[in-house]
């Protein structure tokens, strides 16, 4: 142990938490986990539950892998990572089925598919395997939050424009409909999630010119 202990929220650790929210966002910059971003963002509630589930799996998984990192033989590390992810995802799925049955039905296979969400494997392999427990935990939280806020923003717009509701409550007044306003059915279809993500990417790169690739 070094004589000067690093504070829990040192600048470096804070960066682990905040970088994935914008500059290293898993969805808009690294373009990982797009599949589930399309599938669960029709309504806000499932998107929120999905974001929470991924947070739980990623944060706990990162901690477990980081704890085990010195004992894992490199030859079987992918298998070990998969077992950890699969076990956590099954746990999350079981808990959802027991306590939020309706949402779990809406999410259907996509909770199970967290297993194949590249963000999680990516973080285990790139970060948790070679870092201490606390930074790994922060890295997990940060990346899950970066994934989650995109999901929630996309779901917000898709639900608002596609169904005229937020979290299941009508927010567009009946008067609008009487004047001929219609919910945009297109927003409910999966491709519209890509377009919303595209708009987020556009806004983000417009604000932060560093992110624009040169070619």
């Amino acid at each position, binding site marked *: 142990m070094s004589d000067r202990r690093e504070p829990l929220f040192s600048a470096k650790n804070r960066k682990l938490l905040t970088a994935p929210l914008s500059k290293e966002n898993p969805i808009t910059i690294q373009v990982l986990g797009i599949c589930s971003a399309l599938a669960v963002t029709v309504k806000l509630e499932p998107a929120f539950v999905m974001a929470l589930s991924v947070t739980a799996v990623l944060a706990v998984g990162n901690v477990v892998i980081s704890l085990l990192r010195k*004992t*894992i*033989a*490199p*030859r*079987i590390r992918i*298998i*070990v990572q998969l*077992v950890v992810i699969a*076990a956590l995802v*099954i*746990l999350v799925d*079981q*808990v959802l*089925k*027991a*306590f939020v*049955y*309706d949402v779990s039905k809406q999410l*259907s296979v996509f909770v199970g598919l967290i297993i194949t969400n590249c963000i999680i494997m990516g973080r285990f392999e790139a970060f948790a395997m070679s870092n201490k427990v606390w930074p790994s935990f922060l890295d997990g939280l940060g990346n899950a939050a970066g994934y989650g806020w995109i999901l929630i923003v996309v779901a917000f717009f898709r639900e608002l424009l596609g169904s005229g509701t937020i979290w299941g409550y009508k927010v567009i007044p009946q008067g609008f409909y009487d004047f001929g306003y219609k919910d945009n059915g297109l927003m409910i279809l999966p491709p519209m999630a890509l377009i919303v993500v595209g708009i987020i990417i556009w806004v983000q790169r417009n604000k932060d010119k560093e992110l624009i690739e040169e070619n």
Partner: protein
Amino acid sequence: MFTNRYIFTYASIMVILVAAILSTASMVLKPYQEKNIKAEKIQGILISAEIEASRSDAEKLFDEYIVEELAVNKEGDVISIFKKGKLVKGDVRPFDLNLKEQLNLEKEAAKGKSDKQALFPLYIMNYNGKQIYVVPVRGMGLWGPIWGNVAFGSDFNTITGAKFDHKGETPGLGAEISTNWFGEEFKGKTIFNKEHQFVSIAVVKGGVANSNINLSHGVDAISGGTITSNGVTDMLKDCLKNYVQYIDKNVK
């Protein structure tokens, strides 16, 4: 650095540990999950009888409106009666019958492979002074099982409501069977013709109006969902036919 023995031991211990954790979790959470599944089944029955129910009050409303639960066999005999929270006759609560198993049993029996008789659940409800028969149905769609509940009026011929659901039919096409409008189509249709022969209800591709099927025995299929629609037709026929003898004997 890591010997083979180390790797094998490591992997074995890890797998056993994970298995223990997961099976414990499954055991602890099972009662909650089963409660949800039961509430959902009840909710399906209530919706077909046009009783609005949320998952939490479904059980209460069911107890309020149910008159009796019957299990009938193909010959139309009543084997089990469950009334006011007690088994009055027979030894199995009709609600607990697994329709999938019973339908398989029926298929086996029809082929002469099994002599066990299949039992079919029937729910008799009383809502707003009207008698309603609710029949659960189950069949195959394109990708997986489809199921639902069909409610009949007191003549056990005219459909008063129907609601279907599915495991994983194609969204926007076959999956439309779970929407309200598809169920609405069945309202007022009859499963017996004027000579009182069983004809079931057909889901007709291209529209009933353009086919040679009587308007009162058919509904329009879903465009692009032909196989699911045919699945609904088969499901209704295969399930409802088992009640024909019961209807002949008991409902006139």
